[in-house]
């Protein structure tokens, strides 16, 4: 992240980022960080920030990233696009005549602005406090806790070990211990319930299995196994999400024609990359308000 911040601080925002811009995912600090950097550079109070300058610069920054960098860096930079989209909305909102917010859409845009500010303020608070915590840790690391092996005289007093594990069982424990690394479950299976939650993430994973061969698949074949209309809808939304994440390419010859889907993401792609609004299934009564993007409860 240091590279990003340094660049923002030094004002090197115009295309010409060749000066050692490198993104390491571990250290990638994200769009809020960059936004804060921009705001700092303009010495603006983030509660009253004039958005247009920051928005233009931010979009310019994203564009520069896209022009100048390898696909790997682009991959990391894709996180920017969500914020860039919000900023674009905000910019549009700014063009609206002041005071005329009776239109539902205008209201939504203004709310989007408040939301972005709120998130930015919140992020700034955590960032500030993380510096305090880092200071404490640094001070604290000068002290070393006593942690020494138990004297043999005491160790020998431990009760004799009861051991009933056979070598085969032991090997099985080892096998599992090595395996857990590969797949850490992030959700509990709910299939045994009467109705089950359909999430965009789950459907994205399903799609991945179907598409991973790299061939072009028609949408109809992708929904052939779907158990319900809701699964079809959520699966379609998942395709849109995957498209936004550049995990798939879409082709459609004519309106209402077959939609052709091709998998293009790297082998290390996981559905965790999809934006987080999807991993919280909503209750049925929330469906209308939450919109189709989240998840739906399937009754039977």
């Amino acid at each position, binding site marked *: *992240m*240091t590279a990003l911040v340094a660049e923002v601080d030094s004002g090197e925002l115009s295309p010409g980022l060749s000066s050692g811009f490198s993104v390491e*995912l*571990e*250290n*990638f*600090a*994200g*769009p*809020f*960080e960059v936004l804060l950097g921009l705001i700092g550079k303009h010495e603006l109070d983030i*509660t009253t920030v004039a958005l247009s300058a920051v928005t233009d610069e931010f979009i310019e920054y994203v564009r520069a990233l896209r022009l100048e960098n390898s696909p790997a860096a682009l991959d990391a930079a894709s*996180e920017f696009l969500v*914020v860039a989209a919000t900023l674009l909305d905000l910019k549009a909102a700014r063009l609206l005549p002041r005071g005329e917010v009776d239109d539902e859409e205008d209201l939504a845009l203004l709310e989007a602005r408040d*939301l972005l500010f*709120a*998130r930015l*303020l*919140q*992020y*700034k*608070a*955590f*960032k*500030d*406090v*993380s*510096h*305090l*915590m*880092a200071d*404490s*840790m*640094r*001070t*604290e*690391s*000068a*002290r*070393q*806790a*006593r*942690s*020494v092996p*138990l*004297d043999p005289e*005491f160790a020998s007093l431990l*009760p004799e070990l009861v051991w009933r594990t056979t070598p085969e069982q032991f090997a099985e424990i080892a096998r599992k211990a090595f395996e857990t690394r590969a797949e850490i479950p*992030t*959700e*509990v299976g*709910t299939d045994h319930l009467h109705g089950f939650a359909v999430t965009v993430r789950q459907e994205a994973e399903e799609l991945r299995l179907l598409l991973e061969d790299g061939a072009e698949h028609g949408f109809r074949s992708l929904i052939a196994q779907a158990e319900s209309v809701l699964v079809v809808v959520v699966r379609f939304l998942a395709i849109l999400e995957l498209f936004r994440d550049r995990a798939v390419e879409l082709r459609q010859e004519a309106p209402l024609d077959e939609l052709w889907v091709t998998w293009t993401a790297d082998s290390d792609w996981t559905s*965790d*990359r999809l934006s*987080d*609004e999807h*991993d*919280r*299934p909503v209750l049925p009564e929330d469906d209308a308000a939450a919109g189709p993007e989240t998840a739906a409860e399937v009754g039977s």
Partner: protein
Amino acid sequence: MSAEPSTVPDPDTLPGGLAAALEAVLMVADRPVSDFDLAEVLSVPVAEIRATLDSLRAEYDGVGPAGGVPRGFELRKVGGGWRFYSRAEFAPLVQAFVLEGQTSRLSQAAMETLAVVAYRQPVSRARVSAIRGVNVDGVIRTLVARGLLAEVDRDPISGALLYATTPYFLEKLGLDSLEELPQISPHLPGVDQLDEFQG
């Protein structure tokens, strides 16, 4: 399995009394030991344990009634219990002998993630991601492997794993409990309204 009470001598009958008994026990501890655990093992009221540890701490710091110079070690109450530490002033010397446990500095990303979890725990990765604006899966995995965070629960609705800080985290910050974390409100204008916005 606990030892028979009869075999454990009354610390007052031993040379050095309760203070020395506490020193002896803490000498073999490899984690912070709470007042209560000490009170139970020694069969002494918690209040007496606390008072004795407080005066030992003062004595080691060279500020006890007897005065004197600070010792090279100190007794501290962190992470919910008492433990012996080397005194900070001697860090360069100590580091020449203790290789293990010298943890490399955490990245800024890791510190921010840790801060969010500390103040919002128990919390899902998705929630932390939303606050930080980036995917935090890798960072959280590192923090769990470092022993600073732990998976503590699952969200009853989404089934998502929830993360919280560990006693080890408190120790690393030199805090006895989460209540001692610095207040976040001064850093957070309009904090009351923000909860509604969290993704």
